[in-house]
C-alpha cells in the first residue's frame, strides 16, 4: 500500500525503516471510486492526498456550469487545494476521481506533527513545494505567452502520460482551449509527421 509512496519520497530524501513506520501512522488509506468527490466547492480541504493508484482532477465550475481544470494527479502525484488546506478557508475547487483511486491522505494537524517527529519529511515537502512553485510559474508563462498549439506540445512533451490517461476534453479545459481547437491542433500535428 505504501510502496509507491516511499519510492517517491526516497527519491528526494532517504528515510530509515523506523522513520517510514512513523510516517505511515499519519496517513489514512482511502479508496475513491470514479466520479466520487474528495473535495467539493465551499468545503475546507481537510486532506493532502498522495495518489497510489488512479487519477484525480481538481477543477472549478463557472456561473454557467462550465468546468475549468486546475490540476490532474496520476500515480505518485499529490493533490489538494493547498490554499484551503493550509489556511482553513473554504475551497473554490472540486476534486474527484477520473479513475478508481487509492489514496494516502494526511490532515494539516497530522502534517504538522509529522514534520516535528520526522524532520526529513519537512525537507521532502520543501522540495515538493519548490517544484510546485516552479511548475505554476511555467504554467502561468505558458498560458500568457504561448499559442494553443505550443501549449499543447509542451504539455504533451513534459507529461506524455497525461495524454494517455486523461480524456481530451479535460486536457482542452486544462489548456484553456475548446475541444474543437484541440482536435484541430492534434490533426495538424499528425499531418506534419
Amino acid at each position: 500500500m505504501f510502496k509507491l509512496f516511499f519510492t517517491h519520497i526516497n527519491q528526494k530524501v532517504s528515510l530509515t525503516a523506523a522513520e517510514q513506520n512513523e510516517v505511515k501512522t499519519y496517513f489514512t488509506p482511502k479508496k475513491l471510486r470514479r466520479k466520487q468527490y474528495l473535495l467539493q466547492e465551499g468545503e475546507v480541504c481537510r486532506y493532502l492526498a498522495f495518489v497510489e493508484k488512479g487519477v484525480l482532477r481538481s477543477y472549478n465550475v463557472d456561473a454557467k456550469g462550465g468546468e475549468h481544470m486546475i490540476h490532474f494527479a496520476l500515480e505518485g502525484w499529490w493533490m489538494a487545494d493547498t490554499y484551503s488546506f493550509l489556511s482553513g478557508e473554504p475551497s473554490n475547487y472540486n476534486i474527484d476521481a477520473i479513475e478508481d483511486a487509492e489514496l494516502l491522505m494526511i490532515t494539516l494537524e497530522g502534517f504538522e506533527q509529522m514534520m516535528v517527529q520526522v524532520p526529513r519529511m519537512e525537507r521532502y515537502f520543501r522540495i515538493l513545494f519548490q517544484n510546485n512553485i516552479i511548475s505554476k510559474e511555467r504554467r502561468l508563462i505558458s498560458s500568457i505567452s504561448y499559442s494553443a498549439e505550443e501549449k499543447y506540445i509542451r504539455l504533451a512533451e513534459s507529461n506524455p502520460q497525461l495524454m494517455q490517461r486523461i480524456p481530451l476534453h479535460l486536457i482542452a479545459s486544462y489548456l484553456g482551449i475548446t475541444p474543437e481547437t484541440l482536435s484541430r491542433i492534434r490533426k495538424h500535428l499528425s499531418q506534419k509527421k
Partner: protein
Amino acid sequence: MAFKQTIAIIGAAGRYGAAFAKALSTGPYRLLLMDPKQGALPAIQAEISQSCSHPDVEAVSCCKEASWEADIILFTLPFSERDHLVAKMQEVVTRKTVLFLLEKPEENALAVLKQQLPHSGIVTVALYLPAGTGNNERISGNDAEAINTARALLHDIHFNSII
C-alpha cells in the same frame, strides 16, 4: 453541497447492523454493507430500497475492502468474531473513526481494541447499560474527534429508538 461520508457496517446482516443500516440509509451517507453471512445482505438492501427513495448502499464481500473505502467503520459483530476481522482491517483504518457496538460496557474492551488498532480513533458504544448507569457511560473512546463523530452519528439516527 456537503461531502458524503462513506460508512462501512461490518455485521450488517445482524439485528443491530441491519437496524443501523436502515437508519443511516436516510442520511447523507454512502453505506457499504459487509457481513460474514453475505447471503443475507440482498434482503436488507431490498428493504432499504423500499423505504428510501435514493439509497446509496452497496454490499461488499471483504471486511478490508469495505474499511479501506470507508471514512467511518461501524463494527456490530459479537466479540467471538471480532479479533480476526479487526486484524484484517488494521492496515486500512489508520486515523479513521471505528465504532464498536458492545452488548454492555466491557471493562477492557477499549484497551484491547487500542492495542489492535493503535492508530485509529476507537469508540465503543454499549447497547445496554446496567441499572443505575448514566447515559454518558454508554460511549467510551481514545480520541475526542472520534467520540464527537460517534455522538453526532448516533444523534442523527435516533440511537435510542434503535435499541
